[in-house]
Every structure is written in structure tokens, then in C-alpha cells.
């Protein structure tokens, strides 16, 4: 697989506060890549840097080109969905296509197709306030996916959902990812979610964040959450995270 994103010597300060202290990693094309770490460690900041929403020191390359501002090649699914409340489901999904100047008829066709993929047929004309949390997240996902980005960025997209909907959406995400073969960079603080979804997991240390570990998850899909290997990897991840919260390893 080819490398699609490369991050080298990345540092980030908010005024005097050093949040990210030198991070290097790369993401492969078509990979489901998770970023995990203690809360407040800068996971979201890292994702926002890749999205082009934050200034930073160091280098971030997308297919060899430096990232300097937001672009349609990297769309984002926000934690609180950020759906436009004045647009219907279909209106939200075509938003990016309108900006790409795709003819209306074709844009609507693409949007409808994507709405079908995320399982929201019949809700095209509903407004966001009429939808449940899980459905809103599907709309946000469809809106970002339909633009056909190089990389899909997801910032704790399921954290606002109840446990049952969350598991359902994880299964859906795994299904949609396999169907669309998108490169996904996914921020989460849930170990189970990371192991269930990812090819590789980047573990960040607490602030100022460095790369604590990079864990491969070579399990076949669909994954069994209670399988032996699944639990072994989860435990390993748990130990790394626990160690840096309690132990001296946090730097």
C-alpha cells in the first residue's frame, strides 16, 4: 500500500503551552488509522491540523504536498455532527457537491446514493432536529464521504451516542469503510472501538504529546469483540494507556 499522509516533526503550541511535542507517523492509502490517547492529550488538535484548521510547526504532507489550509481532499466528521440545521438531510449531503460545482441533477443522484449507503433512505427531506443522534452521525458521514476525499477525518464521532447505538454505528462504519475503501483517520478514546475498527493504532502520550506506541491490528473482519486475539490487543493497549496515566512513563 502507498503512503498517503506523512507527518514529521510536528509541534503545536497554544500560546506558551506546548501541546504536541514532535510527532512523526505516516498513514497508508485505504487504511483505517486510529489515534488514541488520554483526554486532553491533543488528539483532536492533531486531527484539526491535518484538516488544515490549525497552525503548526513541522511538516504534514498529503501525497507529498504540504498541507497549509483546509481542502476538499480532507473532509471531517465532527464530534457534535455540525449539521446545518437549516438544510434537510439531502441538503446537508449535497453541500460539498454544490461547492464543487457539480451539476444539480448529478449532485442529487450522488447524494441519494450516499444516503442509501449510510442507511437513511426515507429521511432525505427530514431536518436535523427531527433525527436521532445515530442518524445525525450517518448524515455527517454521508456529507463528508460524498465529496470523495482522499482522507476522511473523524473526531470521536460516536462519543455522544448511547452504548447500543454506538456498537451499531461501529459495525456500520466498518461496513461502510470496507465498501468505500476510504483512508480514515479516526480519533477516539475507546480502546474497544479502536481495536474493532483499525488497521493500526497510534497511541499518544499525555501532554505534551509524543508517539507512545504504534500498534498493528492484523485481525480479519468482521471482528469478534470477544475473540482471544481481540482481547489480547485490547489488554496491551490498556496497559500502555494505564502506564502513562499512573506510572512514570508519561514523560
Amino acid at each position: 500500500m502507498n503512503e498517503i499522509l506523512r507527518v514529521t516533526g510536528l509541534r503545536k503550541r497554544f500560546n506558551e503551552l506546548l501541546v504536541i511535542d514532535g510527532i512523526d507517523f505516516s498513514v497508508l492509502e485505504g487504511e483505517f488509522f486510529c489515534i488514541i490517547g488520554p483526554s486532553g492529550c491533543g488528539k483532536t488538535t492533531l486531527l484539526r491540523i491535518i484538516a488544515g484548521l490549525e497552525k503548526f510547526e513541522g511538516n504534514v504532507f498529503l501525497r507529498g504536498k504540504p498541507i497549509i489550509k483546509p481542502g476538499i481532499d480532507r473532509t471531517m466528521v465532527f464530534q457534535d455532527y455540525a449539521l446545518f440545521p437549516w438544510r434537510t438531510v439531502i441538503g446537508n449531503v449535497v453541500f460539498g457537491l454544490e461547492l464543487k460545482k457539480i451539476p444539480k441533477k448529478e449532485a442529487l443522484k450522488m447524494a441519494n446514493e450516499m444516503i442509501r449507503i449510510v442507511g437513511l433512505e426515507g429521511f432525505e427531506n427530514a431536518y436535523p432536529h427531527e433525527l436521532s443522534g445515530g442518524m445525525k452521525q450517518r448524515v455527517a458521514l454521508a456529507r463528508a464521504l460524498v465529496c470523495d476525499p482522499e482522507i476522511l477525518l473523524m473526531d470521536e464521532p460516536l462519543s455522544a451516542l448511547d452504548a447500543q447505538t454506538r456498537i451499531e454505528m461501529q459495525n456500520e462504519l466498518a461496513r461502510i469503510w470496507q465498501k468505500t475503501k476510504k483512508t480514515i483517520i479516526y480519533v477516539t478514546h475507546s480502546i474497544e472501538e479502536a481495536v474493532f475498527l483499525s488497521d493500526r493504532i497510534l497511541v499518544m502520550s499525555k501532554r505534551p504529546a509524543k508517539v507512545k506506541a504504534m500498534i498493528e491490528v492484523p485481525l480479519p473482519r468482521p471482528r469478534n469483540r470477544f475473540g482471544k486475539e481481540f482481547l489480547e490487543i485490547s489488554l496491551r493497549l490498556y496497559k500502555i494507556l494505564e502506564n502513562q496515566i499512573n506510572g512514570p512513563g508519561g514523560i
Partner: protein
Amino acid sequence: MKSNVIFTILSISLFLLNWEIFYWSIIRDPFLLAPPSRVVPTFIRLFIGQDPSFYMPLDVLYSLYHYAIGFSVAVVFGVSLGLLMGYLKTIEKIIAPTIELLRPIPPIAWIPISILLLKLTHVSAGFIIFIGAFFPILLNTRHGVANVELKFLEAGITLGADEFNLLRKVIIPGAIPSIFTGIRVGSGVAWMCVVAAELFGVSAYGLGYQIEIARLYHAPEIVISYMLSIGLIGYVLDRMYKFLENRLLKWRRGLVVE
């Protein structure tokens, strides 16, 4: 629902009854006040244009004309300047102090200067109405634009919106509810200013003007009839904007619950 109608009728009947009793027991002078039993027939006669000396339908049209002049200009300038101020910090900084200086001056205080500059014309009345409606529309629009949530802006940017599209597809739609609030508040003030402007003689036509003429005739039943028509039209205007708001802002229903 049904009990609401009953209470409405009860409330108004009690009010009219007390008014009637008050007139016949205390005032008893047709040159000072009129009881409902005299006002209602007068109002109907005036409203259908059957009075020999007052032609109310034309006054309604003139007042609406003044309202339209002042209010439409206020909407155009209030909304566009509000958008600019909310969107561009530099413009905001240049204009805001002047706005704060002019805003506390009551529209009525502008009447003398309006008469001096524009004479006794329809435009002069329109100017007073403009002053009244302009500030609420401007301030609500500015507030709406400046308070569009950051997450919507970032969502727009990451989906490929440039500055112009961000304004057109995110900021303006996001500010529409505030703009509508401004328009409804502005319309209410504008209608009050219609009466004030005409009452002070800025224009020799309209509901407010005829109220004053009727007072000079010592005809309180006509004064009160005109008061009634002013209230009625103000109510209809507000309902109209409310209706328009509900139609255009379907997406807001239930949003408060979230």
C-alpha cells in the same frame, strides 16, 4: 383551545361593559369620550367608507404607504449594514460608535429636523419610520451574523467553502432567525412611528393624522375608531411576518428543545 376562545370573549366583553358603565356613570359628555355603543357603529361606518367627512380606507392606504417607504428602506439598509458589521470587524469598529450615539435618540425627536429638511411630504413620514425600524433590524442582523456557531463555519470550510460561499451558504442562513426577529421588532416600532409621524403633521394624510383632526372636531368616537384601526392593522402586520417566519424557517421548529 375552546376554553381559550371563551376566555377571550369574556375578557373583551367585561372590558367593553366596564367602559360603557364608566362613560354613563362618570363622563356623560359626548365631546370628551364615547362609549362602545357609540364607537362600534362609528367604526363600522368609517371602515366601509360611509362617513361624510372621514374616508378611512384612503387613510389606511396612506399609512401603509408611509410604512412601506420607511420600512422597506430600513430592511434593505439594516440587513446589509448588519451583515457587513457582523462579518467584517473593521467595518464594525468604524460604524459601531456612531450607531451607539444615534440609537438612543427616539424617532420622534427626529420629526422637527425631518420637517425642516423634507417638508410636509410622504418621504418625510417615511424617514421617521425608517429611523424607528432601522436600529432593531441592524442590531439583530449584526448579532445573528456574529453569533453563527464556529462549528458550522468549520464544517463549511472543510467541505470546500471559500469566503464568499461561506457568507452565502453558512453565515446568512445561520443568521436568518435573528434577521427575522429584527424585522418583526422593527415592524412594530415602524408602525408606532407611522402614527407618531402623521400625528405631528409630517404628512397631511393617514390614520395618525386623522386622529388629530378628529380631536380638533371634538369627536371622540372617531378618535377611538381610528385608534382601533391602527391597532388592528399593527396586529395583522405582525401576524403576517410571524406567518412568513414559520413558513421560511420550518427547520427551527423543535430546535429549542435540543
